[in-house]
């Protein structure tokens, strides 16, 4: 079965051998050919020597979810031969290194097997172990170029950009590409039935990962203090922020307009963010599940003391240390009601890198406006994989919403300043920053306090404050990003999802429609939930909630916050740690749809 610009292939190698550059070279080339492409890096929590995979999907329709089936596998890791070859769809292709005789594990009937002596060719063509291993990767990229009709000019252009100042490397890469390309051309019927053709569908897009985008958002939002403790998959967010600051925030004399503190642990990182925000800076941390657990106490302090703070949770597979290099959406409950006592927190759910950027800036506005912790809940798939998304743009008229912060003059004009008085009836009490004015001084505490910030053990004075907090969070529901709602003529089924599931769900919607199952779709983008979310649930006879965790945590939040009964919503769960596929959603919906046209 032939297909142009609509297929997927998977490359199986060993981590630490440098296949990453070959893979991104392939991604970028296809992207520059104007063809929608996406890649999923499936790597181990290890530095060197374990199996790693890279899945590249080409989709003229622009579907970016994880591929539903694999048309070709490039098997370069003997340790996973069996698994990898089993992955190929019937009639699909296997590309292996024929420097060695075909391994029994690879000899699978019903597929096409192509051998290229990558190893042997590189041993002949290059000197030294490391160069040989590295170039072996570039060589398979070359072979794929021939097999899939990747434009060599584009590849060459990319190599020239990348190694502009490294002639030697440029030459060897060039040579390696040709090794694979020429061998394939000479030995196989190129291109394969599934291959590429130039399009013009990526002009307005970029290839970007969510952590880089979020870091940019923090940069543009004017964040000045970043505190963190390294943890996969959140590390690259703060590292990207640092790089951007180095580039855009350093004075002529080398002095920096930012301060990034690598804390001793996540508790300290949270404390630093809270201290900096309290003092008036825009400050944030980036972490993953274990960090969220460790930050619980501080989160409660910020909530109860009305201190802004921005947390990025790049979710990975839990519980506990779990699978650090696998994705999941299982921190929802521990974030929504984080910390002991009565609490509730604002959370934003980006669906892709583009939203990571915009929601990052929005997070700071919300945190300062509502004087409370705000969580940007991303995940490993969004954060670390390259996604094709629209070019990010910026409105130069944007001004940060610092919320109710009294100036020295405003404080001076007051008869008396009391920190926690709900002046405007919106539950948000004007705050003052340290150092601004003696009359603005107040005492911030996590212990019982009254509306003046004074210590109290009095029931009424205590309730006065916590009731205001409840009111404040209730009002936040309509201030967080509104849900995205996609409807179809007289659809009775509703699908609700969030975050990274979006890519798979919109693809599934199309396929379901083609199969005669019309579904409306609501994507939750913020917490607490806007009223429209409850309405959507109530207005559909059957609702599926698609999410990546075992316990249907999004459905739990919907049950608690909208009042819609739990069992009115059918969970569609995927929690094995890999990005969601449309196939998974389609199957779940079809199989459980009351009288579906199957």
């Amino acid at each position: 079965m032939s297909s142009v610009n609509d297929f997927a292939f998977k490359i199986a190698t060993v981590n630490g051998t440098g296949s990453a550059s070959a893979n991104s070279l392939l991604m970028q080339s296809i992207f520059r050919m104007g063809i929608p492409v996406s890649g999923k890096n499936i790597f181990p929590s290890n530095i060197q020597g374990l199996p790693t995979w890279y899945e590249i999907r080409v989709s003229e329709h622009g579907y970016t979810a994880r591929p539903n089936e694999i048309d070709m596998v490039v098997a370069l890791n003997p340790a996973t031969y069996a698994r990898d070859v089993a992955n190929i769809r019937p009639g699909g292709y296997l590309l292996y290194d024929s420097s060695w005789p075909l391994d029994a594990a690879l000899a699978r009937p019903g597929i096409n097997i192509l051998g290229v002596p990558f190893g042997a060719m590189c041993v002949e063509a290059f000197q030294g172990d490391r160069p040989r291993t590295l170039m072996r990767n570039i060589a398979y990229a070359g072979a794929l170029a021939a097999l899939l009709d990747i434009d060599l000019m584009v590849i060459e252009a990319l190599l020239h950009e990348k190694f502009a100042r490294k002639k030697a490397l440029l030459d060897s890469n060039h040579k390696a590409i040709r090794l694979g390309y020429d061998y394939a051309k000479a030995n196989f019927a190129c291109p394969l039935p599934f291959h590429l053709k130039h399009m013009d569908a990526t002009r307005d897009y970029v290839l970007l990962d969510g952590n880089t985008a979020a870091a940019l958002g923090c940069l543009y939002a004017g964040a000045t203090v970043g505190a963190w403790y390294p943890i996969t998959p959140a590390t690259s967010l703060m590292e990207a922020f640092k790089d951007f600051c180095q580039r855009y925030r350093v004075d002529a004399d080398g002095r920096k307009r930012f301060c990034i503190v690598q804390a001793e642990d996540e508790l300290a990182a949270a404390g630093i963010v809270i201290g900096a925000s309290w003092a008036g800076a825009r400050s944030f941390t980036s972490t993953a599940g274990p960090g969220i657990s460790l930050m619980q106490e501080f989160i409660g302090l910020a909530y109860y003391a009305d201190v802004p703070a921005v947390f990025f949770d790049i979710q990975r597979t839990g519980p506990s240390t779990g699978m650090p290099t696998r994705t999941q959406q299982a921190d929802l409950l521990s974030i929504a009601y984080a910390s002991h006592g009565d609490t509730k927190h604002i959370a934003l759910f980006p669906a892709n890198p583009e939203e990571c950027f915009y929601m990052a800036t929005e997070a700071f506005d919300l945190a300062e406006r509502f004087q409370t912790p705000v969580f940007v809940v991303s995940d490993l798939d969004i954060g670390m994989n390259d996604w094709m998304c629209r070019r990010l743009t910026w409105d130069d008229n944007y001004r940060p919403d610092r919320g109710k912060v009294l100036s020295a003059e405003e404080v001076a004009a007051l008869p008396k300043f009391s920190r926690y008085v709900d002046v405007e009836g919106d539950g948000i009490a004007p705050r003052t920053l340290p150092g601004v004015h003696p009359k603005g001084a107040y005492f911030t505490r996590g212990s019982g306090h009254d509306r003046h910030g004074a210590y109290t053990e009095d029931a009424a004075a205590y309730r006065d404050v916590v009731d205001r907090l409840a009111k404040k969070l209730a009002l936040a529901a309509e201030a967080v990003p509104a849900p995205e709602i996609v409807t179809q003529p007289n659809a009775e089924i509703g699908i609700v999802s969030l975050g990274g599931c979006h890519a798979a769900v919109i693809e599934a919607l199309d396929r379901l429609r083609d199969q005669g199952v019309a579904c409306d779709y609501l994507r939750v983008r913020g917490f607490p939930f806007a009223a429209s979310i409850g309405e959507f649930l109530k207005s559909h006879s059957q609702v599926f909630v698609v999410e990546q965790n075992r316990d249907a945590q999004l459905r739990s939040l919907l049950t608690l916050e909208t009042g819609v009964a739990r069992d009115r919503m059918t969970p569609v769960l995927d929690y094995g740690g890999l990005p969601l596929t449309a196939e998974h959603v389609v199957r779940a919906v079809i199989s459980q749809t009351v009288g579906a046209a199957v």
Partner: protein
Amino acid sequence: MTSITKPAVRHPGLERNSLGLTKRDYEGSMSTLCAGCGHDSVTAALIQAFFELDIPPHRAAKMSGIGCSSKTTAYLLSQSHGFNSVHGRMPSVATGANAANKDLHYIGISGDGDSLSIGLGQLCHAIRRNVNMLYVLENNGVYGLTKGQFSASADIGSTLKGGEPNAQPPIDPVLLALNLGATFVARSFSGDKSQLVPILKAGLLHKGFALVDVISPCVSFNDHDGSTKSYRYTREHHVDIAPVDFVPLQSEISARTQPGSTTSVTMHDGSVVRFRSVGEDYDPTDRDGAYGFVRAHQAKGEVVTGLLYIEQSGADMHAVSKTVERPLVDLPFDELCPGSAALDDLMQEFR
């Protein structure tokens, strides 16, 4: 209520500092500690120090954790912002505040439980970062607020009220700080205001992390015979390496460089710390010497007090991270946001 502003009416009787403020302007709300608690004396000494240094109250920020000691930030400087955070985590909150606004005078007030048990990691790392702040550790050898369990600073053999002796080696904040590279290390006694006040003043002006371990007896749970943190025991066993005079920049040169004065250290802002008649064997700028000196006296059952070590060369957190001169909170948005043009260019790199 800390937010009450002081009555405008001045008390003619009261002494004024160069800002025209009286000590009252540096006071806080009424203490709720036990009568006789050492912590209240430390509060008084801090008020004295701020008053004498002519620091505008609202330019100070009071940071603390949880404990009787940590409560005391409410009992001074009612015109300063205060942050009574969570137990043992004040150092990180102070670090963040300092990162955001380097121009305030940060004082952290903590206890031995807050700093040496739950907060040990944060204290050590704040020292490493040399966060510019005065860190006062009100050390009474017990957890006061939770009614008198041993803290990690309890000496071996020191007993609880019930008579139970401590058998674990103590963590000595002074030795720890010297070991971790602290740039200002002192120990004092809440009962010795004449020693404490100048040390606090020097600590306030020190550019970096100034650790002041103050033996501050807990009259309710650790002031009995058998306790090595009682008033009596401390009075009998502490040896002052040398009284210090703190001579602020303002005062005329002569006073600062008075001839004949033994050791003296000039601080960042030009102020001078003068050690009177310090013993031959003692050099307050010799880290390892100080360490050995304290250990040697400990072996004799003595508690060395005084400004034990001071180093003016150490770079503080901002110097290390090369941040701009202006506090980050004062930077206008347009100096922080690269703008749309830059973003458009940047996007090209992601294709």
